[in-house]
């Protein structure tokens, strides 16, 4: 039996961590902070190298003997290919402006979660092998050897970055840590070092068309289930079409909205809205994923998965594409799609068939955000809305990182929410719009096994929600992102019980007065609407 320390010895333990330079502090991989390693079958399906099962807790990650050369050649190739990456490796003056802007650092206090230090993990390798000063002066010049410990440390911390870009907003040089993380993950993927929460969905998307691996008949039956519920709730029978050639619009949304609550209620909102408008649109069971977990693997994988949207648009002969509520989907569409797979000359510049508005912002990609589309409808008074149906909700809005910082999409969601809800409260200024705090689960980190990571990373966001919950009684957190809808319920459950999570089009669906509908007594969750359910039971009503 181990010798127990005496109380007098215990009291002598120093509480202050040793003041070692960061390079000398060995990273301990803590369970709860990382996701499971990628499965071989998923890597193989994506034709990624070194396809084999690997366990993070194992000492041996089964990487090829020449792994060091592979990584260094990978860095060299990307330095030549991406000017941004080269500049980001050289230009940082370590001013520290980014240090306290990362939600993972704010929640953990782990210095290696400071964006500057997270970048330094890779930058130190760059210095050692690609700069004269680093080659000659080594550690003194901030350079270090690429050994297995350094590789594992990069893996650990590059899968603790949600690519949210909040840090880049504050960097005087505009260094984009998300781009560095993207490159870092590309390098890790050269050795088969992905996480399964990313590789699995990406493989599913490549083979089946969506992250969840839903096959065409499952997608159809899932939507039919919503239709059955909608008929119960509204009395209206909705008949959407699937894979219909010649439709004017192809609608693409994250598959999460077809599979898990509360995203499913958002999908029901879409169905109601499009039916009410009589929109000539179709769902696709092939391009059945708006999200793109390839984006969290490599640029090439993002391009490959994104291509199916254009390919399907071409096959069906639609005029333009309407996209659902998602985060990273829109960063890919807005910033990469046209370069990846454009120009989509076979499509037309999107034009709303209801209002005649031409969406100039989508002139190149031919893909419009559904919230922009709906905001335009409301602006032109084309929807009959009854916001009092949402009067039992006190709503705040969480800006998704990708739509706010990635495409400047700030006003439209607020305009829509305020049009369908009477009680809206903003969170504090430092936590919304461009400065929004990440949900803590983006960029493929919304697995369950890394719950501690998600909770600490999401704390700054939850803390701001708690503020409006306590001050204004906010009980609903609205968003326009499928990962938010999947991840925020757990975050609220831990930090701010009593606050639920909703997509914006669920709120629209609840407020939408449809032609020929029966009196609404329940909302899209099949929960009684306060003050209206009583009418059904013969009580008083305020309708």
């Amino acid at each position, binding site marked *: 039996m181990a010798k127990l320390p005496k109380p007098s010895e215990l009291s002598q333990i120093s*509480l*202050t*961590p040793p*003041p070692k330079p960061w390079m000398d502090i060995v990273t301990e991989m*803590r369970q*709860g902070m990382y996701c499971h390693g990628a499965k071989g079958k998923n890597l193989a399906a994506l034709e990624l190298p070194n396809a084999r099962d690997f366990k993070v807790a194992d000492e041996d990650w089964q990487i090829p003997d020449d792994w060091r050369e592979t990584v260094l050649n990978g860095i060299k190739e990307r330095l030549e290919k991406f000017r941004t990456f080269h500049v980001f490796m050289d230009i940082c003056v370590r001013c520290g402006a980014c*240090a*306290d802007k990362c939600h993972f*650092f*704010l*929640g*953990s*206090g*782990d*210095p290696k979660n*400071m964006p500057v230090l997270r970048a330094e993990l890779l930058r130190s390798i760059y210095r050692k092998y690609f700069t004269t000063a680093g080659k000659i002066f080594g550690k003194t010049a901030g350079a270090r050897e690429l050994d297995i410990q350094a590789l594992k440390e990069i893996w650990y911390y590059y899968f603790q970055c949600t690519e949210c870009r909040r840090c880049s907003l504050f960097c005087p040089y505009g260094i984009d840590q998300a781009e560095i993380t993207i490159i870092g993950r590309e390098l890790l993927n050269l050795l088969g070092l992905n996480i399964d929460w990313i590789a699995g969905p990406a493989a599913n998307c490549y083979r089946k068309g969506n992250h969840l691996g839903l096959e065409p008949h*499952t997608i159809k*039956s*899932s939507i039919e*289930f919503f239709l*059955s*519920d909608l008929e*119960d709730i509204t009395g209206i029978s909705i008949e959407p079409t699937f894979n219909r050639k010649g439709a004017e619009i192809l609608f693409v949304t994250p598959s999460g909205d077809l*599979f*898990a*609550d*509360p995203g*499913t209620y958002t999908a029901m909102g879409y169905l109601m809205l499009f039916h009410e408008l009589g929109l000539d649109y179709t769902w696709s069971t092939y391009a059945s994923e708006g999200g793109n977990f390839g984006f969290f693997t490599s640029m090439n994988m993002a391009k490959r998965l994104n291509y199916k949207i254009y390919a399907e648009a071409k096959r069906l002969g639609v005029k333009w594409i309407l996209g659902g509520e998602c985060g990273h989907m829109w960063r890919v569409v807005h910033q990469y799609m046209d370069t990846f797979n454009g120009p989509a000359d076979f499509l037309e510049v999107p034009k709303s068939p209801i209002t005649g508005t031409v969406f100039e912002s989508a002139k190149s990609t031919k893909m419009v955000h559904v919230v922009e589309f709906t905001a335009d409808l409301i602006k032109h008074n084309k929807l009959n809305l009854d916001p009092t149906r949402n009067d039992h909700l006190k709503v705040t809005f969480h800006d998704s990182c990708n739509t706010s910082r990635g495409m400047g999409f700030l006003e439209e969601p607020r305009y829509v929410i305020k049009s369908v809800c009477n009680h809206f409260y903003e969170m*504090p200024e*430092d*936590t919304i719009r461009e400065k929004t705090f990440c949900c803590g689960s983006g960029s493929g980190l919304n697995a*369950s*096994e890394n*719950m*501690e990571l998600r*909770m*600490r990373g999401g*704390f*700054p966001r939850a*803390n*701001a929600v708690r*503020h409006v919950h306590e001050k204004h009684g906010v009980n609903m957190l609205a968003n326009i992102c499928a990962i938010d809808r999947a991840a925020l*319920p*757990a975050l609220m*459950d*831990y*930090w701010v019980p009593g606050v*639920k999570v909703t997509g914006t089009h669920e709120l629209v669906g609840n407020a939408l007065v449809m032609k020929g509908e029966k009196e609404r007594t*329940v909302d899209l*969750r*099949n*929960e*009684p609407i306060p003050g209206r*359910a009583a009418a059904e039971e013969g009580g008083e009503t305020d309708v």
Partner: protein
Amino acid sequence: MTLPHILEAEKKAIVDRWFALILATYPADAAQFFRSGSSFTNPVGQSISQGIDDIFDGLLAGAEPETFRPFLDSIIRIRAVQDFTASQAVIFIFHLKTAIRERCLGRIRAEGMLQELLLMESRIDELAVMAFDIFMRCREKLYDLKANELKDRTLWLLKRTGFLTEVEDMPEQTAGCGTNVKQTKEVH
């Protein structure tokens, strides 16, 4: 002169020292940062700072044990998801004893109030026990969240694909009940 009077007079020194001892459980770079900022730009530092201030005031006022639960929760909920073991997460309670002794022991001894100090320290020990309960509840919550996410996903799929069905509501049984809403969807 009573012990609370002495502690009240030295409140700032004691709470500052207590805060410093807690921050010393974090890496130096983080500890420096946790001292600054607002409750939105530095939620961890501010939550700890506010939490210990409330705990200290509660002790001086002789508050009921349950009064301390939200104050302790605001700190422990954070430490339960940080890189701490159970003992490291709750040890900060005992640092209050250290801070009081360091700042006031001489005066307390001079005033002949060692007995009162022991009673106060016993109350702090009670808080430590309560802190451990809160820590365990937070950890259990984390495991619940993990399990529920998996369960919800699986159940949803099984129901939608028809592999799993539930007993339908019987109209004659639901009549007269508070609600007769058809339960077709899982509601969170």
